[in-house]
């Protein structure tokens, strides 16, 4: 090992995938070729196509969910796997190839200073831009989360993030499946549970398939939903999945 690190952490890349047979294979191959020591777990979120087979052929460990749960469900399964198989670090990487795996090491290294590291798209690198209501929503989320975390966060909706053992433990229990729950609310939960959050600037690539919607109406709806989701996340009693509520509060 040419690495100067004293102990090399066991890293698991968790790739939630829903009908991504076109891009998941390439994403895995790239991940492994750039970071050979990383194990890749693809959580097939009830896909109707050949996502699982493609991922298996590409050399990933594949967890197939019986039906579609959304990113939150897929990721919680991933964190549970990481916890049970004693990984030091779990990194979430999207299956569509928009997360550049060369930044994975930077995210993992930054875990020396925090429990969770977010790959932020606005922090200087790359040219990811959003306009109008969508931009306001992202600003609002970023400003609020920065206050909570006591650390400058510029892009809290990024799905590219690394978690250490402490954060894995929290996320294995509490990872919301609701709207924006997998990004914003999960960060709020982690902060409330005593985790520290930091960020590393990354540049995003154009998605292999599909495009983010830029219609003003959609963006407006996004803004409203973001405000609702954020307010709920802030006033909720944590940890409070509905399960826990039934035991503690009722």
């Amino acid at each position, binding site marked *: 090992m040419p690495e100067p690190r004293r102990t090399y952490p066991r890293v698991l890349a968790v790739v939630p995938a829903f009908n991504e047979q076109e891009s998941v294979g390439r994403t895995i191959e790239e991940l492994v070729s750039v970071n050979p020591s990383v194990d890749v777990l693809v959580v097939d979120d009830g896909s109707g196509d050949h996502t699982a087979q493609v991922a298996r052929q590409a050399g990933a460990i*594949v*967890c*197939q*969910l019986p039906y579609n749960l959304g990113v939150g*469900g897929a990721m919680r399964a991933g964190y*549970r796997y990481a916890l049970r198989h004693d990984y030091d670090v779990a990194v979430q990487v999207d299956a569509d190839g928009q997360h550049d795996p060369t930044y994975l090491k930077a995210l993992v290294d930054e875990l020396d200073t925090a429990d969770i590291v977010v790959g932020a798209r606005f922090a200087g690198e790359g040219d990811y831009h959003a306009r109008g209501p969508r931009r306001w929503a992202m600003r609002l989320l970023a400003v609020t989360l920065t206050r909570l975390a006591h650390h400058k966060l510029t892009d809290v909706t990024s799905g590219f993030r690394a978690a250490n053992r402490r954060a894995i433990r929290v996320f294995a229990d509490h990872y919301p499946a609701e709207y924006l729950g997998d990004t914003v609310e999960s960060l709020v939960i982690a902060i409330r549970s005593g985790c520290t959050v930091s960020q590393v600037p990354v540049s995003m690539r154009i998605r292999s398939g599909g495009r983010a919607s830029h219609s003003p109406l959609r963006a407006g709806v996004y803004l409203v939903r973001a405000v609702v989701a954020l307010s709920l996340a802030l006033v909720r009693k944590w940890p409070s999945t*509905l*399960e826990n509520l039934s035991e503690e509060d009722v």
Partner: protein
Amino acid sequence: MRANYVLGLIGSLITLTLLFELLRRRRLREKYAVFWAVVALATLVIAVFPATLTAAADVVGVEVPANLLFFGASMLLLGVSIHQSYEMGRLEERTRTLAEEVGLLRLELQSQADRDRS
């Protein structure tokens, strides 16, 4: 008043019979059946003794007794549907957890089988 009497009587008796039958076939859990039985019995009481409703309306200060009945009934139904939503959310959370666990177990089984083969 005659029609009210008959309608109330028929309604509550049908409800009670239905509840009994569902319970007998184990299609309804007691905790829900008790609630609906109480509602059916209250309907029965009001149907047989309309004076109870009039008296209650007087106490609360509602001029038309039927309005009190409608108000009570709609609040009751609102409460029931909120409770249903709550229960459904709880069930969704549970099925979600089960689905995740099924996925992970399937993976463990598969890797165990792969290990045995090699």
